[in-house]
């Protein structure tokens, strides 16, 4: 299998936090989940893959090209932020439409695409609202729609389902898998939900204090390993974590 993303000896220092020596290959069409305690560096990892930071050591390549050498607008990465990052001065419709407009797709086609996406994510009723007036789950789905409507070859999502109720979550899993099957994109997402990681992902990696450890098949998630930190994390206790007081 070809590697879509190759991360080699990647380290980055942000204030007192350090992402340490990340090595990871994500394969074409793979779905990869990142688990880890809060503050362990999952968001920073995602941002690093997207080429958000300029000062780091090691490298990240996307389809063989160093990510920061590809102009941002040509990276074709869909990024769904943890806090959604909706454009506050645009309606939901205009948010979703944004990338299509940039591509100069004609108006009728745009309308059709947005309508399709809105139906899949059941947000047709809020298209005219501004992000400031939306509920958490509505914002999340808008952010998803905005990224998905462009059929990115790579989708990075930071806790994309956290604000949804169990039923909506289930249907979202189905939708994302469907989209993944149809458009064939590579997905990397962060979650706090073990179950979600197992349902969605092919492989799972666990962040511990800025290190990505215990990369494994999602079917082997709970297999005991040598790494005590990881075993503790998976058992849901924090014994042995160095920052536990």
């Amino acid at each position, binding site marked *: 299998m070809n590697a879509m993303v190759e991360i080699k000896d990647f380290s980055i220092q942000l204030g007192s936090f350090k992402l340490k020596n990340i090595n990871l290959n994500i394969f074409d069409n793979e779905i990869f989940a990142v688990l880890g305690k809060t503050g362990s560096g999952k968001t920073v990892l995602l941002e690093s893959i*997207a080429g958000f930071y300029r000062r780091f050591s090691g490298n990240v390549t996307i389809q063989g090209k160093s990510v920061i050498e590809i*102009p*941002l*607008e040509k990276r074709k990465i*869909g*990024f769904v*932020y943890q806090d959604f990052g909706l*454009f506050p001065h645009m309606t939901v419709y205009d948010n979703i439409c944004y990338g299509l407009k940039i591509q100069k797709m004609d108006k009728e086609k745009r309308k059709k695409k947005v309508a399709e996406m809105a139906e899949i994510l059941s947000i047709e009723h809020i298209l005219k609202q501004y992000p400031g*007036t939306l509920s958490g789950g509505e914002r999340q789905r808008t952010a998803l729609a905005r990224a998905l409507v462009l059929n990115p070859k790579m989708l990075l999502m930071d806790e994309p389902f956290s604000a949804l109720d169990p039923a909506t979550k289930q249907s979202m899993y189905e939708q994302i898998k469907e989209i993944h099957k149809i458009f064939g994109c590579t997905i990397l997402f962060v979650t706090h939900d073990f179950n979600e990681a197992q349902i969605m992902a092919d492989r799972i990696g666990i962040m511990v204090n800025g290190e990505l450890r215990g990369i494994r098949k999602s079917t082997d998630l709970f297999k005991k390993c040598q790494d005590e930190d990881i075993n503790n994390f998976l058992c849901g206790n924090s014994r042995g974590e160095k920052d536990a007081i």
Partner: protein
Amino acid sequence: MKKRTHLFNLFEIISIITAAVVVVFTSVLILTIIVRGFPYLQEAFLSEEIQFSIKLSLYTASIATFICMFLGVPTAYALTRTSFPFKKLCQIIIELPLSMPYLVLGLSLLLIFSSDLGKALKELGFRVVFDKNGIILAQTVVNLPYVIRFIRTAFQEVDERLEFISGSLGASKWKRFTTITVPLSKNAIIATIILTWSRCLGEFGATLMLVGATRMKTETLTTSIYLNLATGDNGAAMASATIILIISFTSLFITNWLGRKNSKESRMKDVTLR
């Protein structure tokens, strides 16, 4: 259960009183101008000289504001969104004139433009000293650091992650700037335009140094105030001041009205904080 609803709390009362003091003080200031200037206002409006200076003031202030924005916006973008060598130093240099008396800035301009360079420019048809162009230049030089400061702050407040997202959705740097950065700092930009324009109308020190005060030639409204004061004609001076007040009032009123129309929708709009 006891339920007490205070209509006001102490902090609110103090802030309202403070505001009242400021309003009263400012009102007295403004009223003095109007009361003294009003009797001469009609005469002033009819005088050819004042008509000339109104036109000159509006013309120079508008052009100077345009130039300030034209130079200020890209500069602010460069200072906040790009990296180049000695950026911090450049920023300090740009903002250093903020602490200079305008007379000194005007004097420097005079020295520059009465040098050989200035003479060469004059040969080419670009007159500065004792000319309308000089007024525009003086107003621009005095206000440019303010404009850059304000716009820079406005751009800094825009969440760069939104620009990053916009880029990841395919937008070029220019598109990111026009569809995200500018709309999100729109209010600050409009406020800066109005403020700059008002400050240009009121500029005097640098203008005086560079173009002098010649009736019907380099006579802006502020120059006219100066000339009338110099001849002891306080009433006429206050009439010109009243005209500046009227112009400022109109422009502030229009911007407030425009600002009201485009306030963003938020969940807080229906919330009363009590």
